[in-house]
């Protein structure tokens, strides 16, 4: 939490196109990606954007399919803010902010048909792979949506599928190839304060943001999910230009950070 005066100052600066750390409005902080950060996960990745740190891990289990999709694997995405990620977080059941983050990232992956879930069917109607995607916010210095999206996409690409024995039990230490990734998707976010649209706020800047617009961008340039978040609004005429920018940035990020 910062003081009211500090907030007014940051807001004024942003509205004048200036930032605390002298970045340009549309400039990201340094992004560092590291895969394979969890020995016991099937796949994992750490993403740092400036001092914001997110880790994502993928666990795979053999489970039963849903009745209406008997030949498809199951994707379950959750997000948790580690209680030390900022002074505002308390341990406890998922808050609506954690739920929203998990659901927005999930929609990008799911709607963008990132994973060929049919290839994760083991025995039709009986056994399929369940993919647990777990996102942890380790240190919150703003823009956790973009960091989470990059972490999840990298963790998915890091996955080695466990080998199964004849009873469909996992054989420790043996693997059976990678996840059937059909598309890469990143969800990127535009932030609005006053009349200014900018990217990648740090924690202090995020406190003065009115609204955010997150779009899932697929490697073929399609938009696969949208979410206007936070209390404020975007003007009707701002939506499409913002999406064009997000798309361009998304394709750039896929090229740079999801290989």
């Amino acid at each position, binding site marked *: 939490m910062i003081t009211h005066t500090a907030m007014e100052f940051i807001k004024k600066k942003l509205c004048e196109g200036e930032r605390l750390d002298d970045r340009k409005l549309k400039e990201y902080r340094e992004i560092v990606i590291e895969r394979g950060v969890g020995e016991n996960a099937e796949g994992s990745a750490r993403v740092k954007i400036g001092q914001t740190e997110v880790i994502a891990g993928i666990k795979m289990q053999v489970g039963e399919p849903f009745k209406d999709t008997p030949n498809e694997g199951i994707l379950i995405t959750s997000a948790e803010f580690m209680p030390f990620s900022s002074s505002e977080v308390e341990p406890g059941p*998922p808050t*609506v902010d954690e*739920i*929203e983050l*998990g*659901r927005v990232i999930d*929609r990008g992956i799911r*709607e*963008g*048909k990132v994973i060929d879930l049919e290839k994760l069917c083991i025995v039709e109607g009986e056994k399929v792979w369940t993919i647990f995607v777990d996102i942890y916010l380790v240190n919150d210095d703003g823009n956790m949506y973009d960091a989470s999206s990059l972490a999840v996409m990298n963790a998915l690409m890091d996955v080695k599928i466990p080998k199964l024995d004849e009873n469909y039990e996992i054989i420790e230490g043996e693997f059976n190839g990678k996840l059937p990734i059909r598309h890469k998707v990143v969800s990127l976010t535009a932030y609005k304060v006053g009349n200014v649209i900018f990217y990648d706020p740090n924690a202090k800047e995020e406190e003065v943001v009115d609204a955010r*617009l997150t779009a899932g961008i*697929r490697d073929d*340039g*399609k*938009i*696969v*999910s*949208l*979410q*206007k*978040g*936070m*209390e*404020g*609004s*975007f*003007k*009707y*005429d701002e*939506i*499409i230009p913002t*999406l*064009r920018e997000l*798309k361009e940035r998304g394709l750039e990020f896929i090229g740079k950070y999801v290989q």
Partner: protein
Amino acid sequence: MSRKFIRNDGRKPEELRRPYKIKLGVVPRANGSALVQSGKTIVMAAVYGPKKVIPKHLEDQEKAILRCRYNMITFSVKDRKKPGPDKRSAEISKLIENALSNVVMLEEYPRTAIDIYLEVIQADAGTRVAALTAASLALADAGIAMKDLIPSTAAGRVNGHIVLDLNKEEEDVEDAIDLPFAYIPSTKEVVLLQMDGIADIEEIEEIIEMAKKGCDKIYEMQIKAIKEKYGSYLEE
């Protein structure tokens, strides 16, 4: 894209579902309430407040706190919904709360709470947009000061056609796009925007335009409903 395309329920692409009904005062005990029906989707909204904040430490000295709770009743859907909140309803509650906070004049009611309860009685797609439409009406019915009403509906793409206010059968079509939308007519501020499905930006542009026109129709009905009950209320 041909406008001649006839939809599974006989509608034209740019038509809202039939019936599209608004009713005020459906929960006499509440300070304000409204029901919105769009085809087979039925949502009730009711408002309590401004009222005392309990526990007191949640109080805001400068404005009212707005609390919104979206819920589906167990038999509103084909597969019985387990009672109680889930992640989907938590997210929707928050999105509707966010949208409404743009129009409710919260600073008029410092140190109070305004509670908005939304109950989906019957679900056939579009429950969140019906809920938001009903919510601003219930607030108005409760006499809460507002900058404007919020009309809300979805638009999308079904079998290659851009259409308004999808029903469940349309939403379930392979490759459908669904885009829930709400804006404030007087300021053109978009206060709800989500999308599922795979779209080009050009399509999104068309879909948003369709959604906006749908909202404009709903806005007229909202105004009419308020006028019918309160006469000159909105004209002062």
